[in-house]
C-alpha cells in the first residue's frame, strides 16, 4: 500500500523555507519530486502522523535536524561504481594530471567516502599520490566521520573487488584494507593525502582551484537552476584544461558550460577548453 503523501506541495515549500531561514540549510532548489519523496519517507519511518507534527519536531528539536539532513540527502554510494568510468579516469585522465607538479582533486558530495578511497587507490597506483591532495567534501558532517574512518561492511567487498577488476585494476584488491570480523578498514596511507571537510554546494563558495572535480550522483537531487549555479561554482574551481566528472546519467548539456567544455570518450567527463 502506498500511503497518500503526508507532506503536500505547499507544506513542502513552507518547511524548506523555514529550515533554510532557521538553520541555514537551503533545500529550496532541490528537485521537488525527489525531496518530497524523501520527506514523506521520513514521516513514514519516524511515524509522524501529520505535517504539523513533522514541522514542529524539526523546528523545535535541533538534534532532530541532523537526522532530517541525513535522510533528505541520499548517502548511497559504492567503490569503483561504473567501472568503465574508472577505467577512463585511470587510463586517460590521471596520467594527464601527472604532468602537474602538484595535483589537486575535489570530490564534492563524497558522502561516506567510497569514491575517495577509489580515487586515492588510482593515484597511488599511478605513483602520483605523493604530490596529490584530494579534497573530500560533503554537506553532512556525520557521513564525513565515516569517510575519515574508512571502515565498511565486509559484505560489500565482493562487489567492490569486481568493480575494481572491471575497471582494469591489476592489484590484489584485498591489499588495500585489513579485514576484521564483519568489517574492513582501508589502509591509513590511502587517506594521508585526503582533506575531509564540510562544504555546502548550495551556499558555500569555491575554496580552491583543481585539475579534477568529481561530483557524481549529487546534482540529480538539484533542480535545473541550482544545477546551473553549481556548474558555475565548479567552473570557477577548475584550472584551465581541468576536468569535470559527473554521474553516469548526469549532463552539462542544459548548462552554459556545454559551450566551453569538451566531452572525453563517451564517459561523463568533460575537459575545460579555456
Amino acid at each position: 500500500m502506498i500511503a497518500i503523501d503526508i507532506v503536500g506541495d505547499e507544506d513542502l515549500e513552507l518547511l524548506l523555507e523555514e529550515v533554510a531561514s532557521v538553520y541555514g540549510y537551503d533545500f529550496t532548489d532541490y528537485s521537488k519530486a525527489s525531496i518530497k519523496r524523501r520527506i514523506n519517507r521520513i514521516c513514514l519511518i519516524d511515524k509522524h502522523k501529520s505535517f504539523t507534527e513533522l514541522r514542529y519536531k524539526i523546528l523545535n528539536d535541533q538534534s532532530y535536524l541532523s537526522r532530517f539532513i541525513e535522510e533528505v540527502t541520499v548517502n548511497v554510494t559504492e567503490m569503483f561504481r561504473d567501472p568503465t568510468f574508472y577505467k577512463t579516469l585511470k587510463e586517460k585522465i590521471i596520467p594527464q594530471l601527472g604532468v602537474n607538479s602538484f595535483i589537486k582533486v575535489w570530490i564534492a558530495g563524497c558522502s561516506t567516502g567510497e569514491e575517495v578511497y577509489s580515487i586515492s587507490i588510482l593515484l597511488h597506483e599511478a605513483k602520483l599520490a605523493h604530490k596529490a591532495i584530494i579534497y573530500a567534501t560533503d554537506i553532512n558532517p556525520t557521513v564525513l566521520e565515516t569517510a575519515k574512518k574508512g571502515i565498511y561492511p565486509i559484505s560489500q567487498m565482493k562487489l567492490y573487488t569486481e568493480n575494481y577488476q572491471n575497471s582494469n585494476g591489476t592489484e590484489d584488491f584485498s591489499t588495500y584494507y585489513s579485514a576484521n570480523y564483519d568489517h574492513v578498514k582501508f589502509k591509513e596511507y590511502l587517506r594521508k593525502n585526503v582533506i575531509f571537510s564540510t562544504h555546502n554546494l548550495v551556499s558555500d563558495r569555491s575554496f580552491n582551484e583543481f585539475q579534477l572535480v568529481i561530483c557524481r550522483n549529487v546534482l540529480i537531487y538539484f533542480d535545473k537552476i541550482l544545477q546551473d549555479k553549481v556548474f558555475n561554482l565548479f567552473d570557477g574551481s577548475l584550472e584551465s584544461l581541468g576536468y569535470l566528472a559527473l554521474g553516469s546519467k548526469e549532463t552539462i548539456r542544459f548548462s552554459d558550460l556545454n559551450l566551453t567544455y569538451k566531452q572525453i570518450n563517451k564517459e561523463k567527463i568533460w575537459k575545460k577548453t579555456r
Partner: protein
Amino acid sequence: MEKNKINPKIEILVIGGSAGSFEVLLQILPKIKFDIDFVVLVVLHRKHNSNTSIADLFGNKTSIPVYECEDKDSLVPGNIYFAPADYHLLIEKDRTVSLDYSEKENYSRPAIDITFKSASDVFKEKTLAVLLSGANRDGANGLKYISQNYGTTIVQDPNEAEISTMPNEALKIFEPNYILGFKEIIKLINSL
C-alpha cells in the same frame, strides 16, 4: 472489458516489467503506431550492465524515437523513454525527469512503484499504466495508487505472463480496469 472507461486524453503510458517482460516489450513496443500523442515511459528491472544500450536495442525495432532517460530530460509526447538501470525515476511537475540513487525499493532500482506513483501525481487521471510479467511484488502498490487517482490500469493476464507473480500480486490487492494478453494490450494502446 469496459473500453469506455479509458479517459480519451491519456497523456502518459507507463509500463512496468521485470523477469519475463523483456520479450513482451519486444512484442508490444514495435507495434505501437508511430503517431501517438502521449509519452511512453518504461520501467524495466534489469542487470546493471551498461554495455548494451536499451535505447539502441528497441530503437532499431520501432519508428518511434527511443531514449534512455538522463537526469532532467523532458518527457515529450510521441517518444518512448526507458528508466536507466540502477536509478529510480521520478517525474517533476514540469514533466522533466529527476533521477534518484537512493535505497532500493522492493529489492529493485529502478522501482516500478516509485515511478508509477510519481506519474500518477503529475498526470493524475490521464495516466495509463500496464504491469507485465515479473517474479516480485514491485509495481502492485503503484498500480493501485494510479487506480485510486482515477488513472487507467492494465495487468498482463497471469495465464499468459511468463512469470505470473507480479501480475498476481497486483490482482490480490485491487481490481484493475483490464486484465489482458499482450495482443489485446497492443490493440488497446493503438485505439487511444
